[in-house]
């Protein structure tokens, strides 16, 4: 379970509102490589992990990603809160404003609503962790694009740099987790293709066992 801490993981006080930046930053809220995808990916994958290290890492990083979701939502909120209709129009936010006003809704920068197909759960620790490693790199790459595009707003760039840094740390921890699994596989302490687990259909299992 979770309990809420009534403070942000990283402080945010945006002095200059700018809905143009909100329009692109929203991608890290509800886009393919955003924090909603990250948290749900890890928190869903953790159930099927075969060893205690990967369960812990997925649980703990998934939890931190929820804090990052809040940070990105806060950025979007503070960049748009109380801006005039004219500014919204100038920022090209008319379609977003029509559907969501200035609420924070999980869509990508291109306006595509969040979709579960952004994430994968393969019930296979190597496939899952490889997906997670790629996800952290993709998120880092997106933050770098955003830092380029937001370069004139120092308050925003400061927060984006923090989030980018965390992606690097998460990548490192996932990499160690994957190494650990490879090591245990070599020692035959865990079995990735545990057929009792990955092939619950007994008939298939029997055929497999014959070869």
């Amino acid at each position, binding site marked *: 379970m979770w309990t809420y801490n*009534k*403070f942000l993981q*990283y402080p945010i006080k945006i002095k200059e509102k700018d809905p143009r930046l909100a329009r692109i930053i929203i991608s890290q809220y509800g886009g393919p490589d955003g924090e909603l995808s990250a948290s749900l990916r890890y928190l869903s994958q953790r159930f099927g992990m075969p060893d205690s*290290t990967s369960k812990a890492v997925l649980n*703990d*990083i998934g939890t931190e990603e929820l804090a990052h979701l*809040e940070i990105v939502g*806060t950025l979007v909120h503070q960049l748009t809160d109380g801006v005039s209709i004219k500014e919204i129009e100038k920022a090209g936010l008319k379609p977003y404003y029509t559907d969501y006003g200035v609420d924070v809704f999980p869509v990508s920068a291109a306006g595509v609503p969040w979709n579960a197909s952004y994430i994968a759960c393969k019930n296979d620790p190597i496939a899952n962790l490889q997906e997670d490693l790629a996800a952290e790199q993709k998120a880092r790459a997106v933050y770098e694009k955003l830092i380029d595009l937001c370069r004139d707003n120092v308050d925003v760039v400061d927060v984006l740099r923090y989030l980018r840094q965390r992606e690097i740390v998460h990548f490192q*921890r996932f990499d*160690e987790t994957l190494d650990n699994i490879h090591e245990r596989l070599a020692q035959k302490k865990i079995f990735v293709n545990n057929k009792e687990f990955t092939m619950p259909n007994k008939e298939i299992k029997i055929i497999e066992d014959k070869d």
Partner: protein
Amino acid sequence: MSNEAKKLKEELLEEIRACHFAITDSSLFLDTHPGNRKAMRYYKNQCEKLKELEDKYQEMFEPLCITSPCNRLKWVEGAWPWEGSDE
């Protein structure tokens, strides 16, 4: 709230945030480095420090978590983190 109290509140919250982050990061490190004694020591120190800071803040100002009964009414009244307001 006096300016002095406001300043103290802000400073305390910054310390809490830093401490909480130190715990998040070192705890994640310990997930994959369970035998690292230096990290374990650091992690434990930060946990103790956080408890002291949070107790102080919650008694003086407002709850940071619903598990704290201090100043309960301020859970609803106080500003929310995303608002970033000066109160």
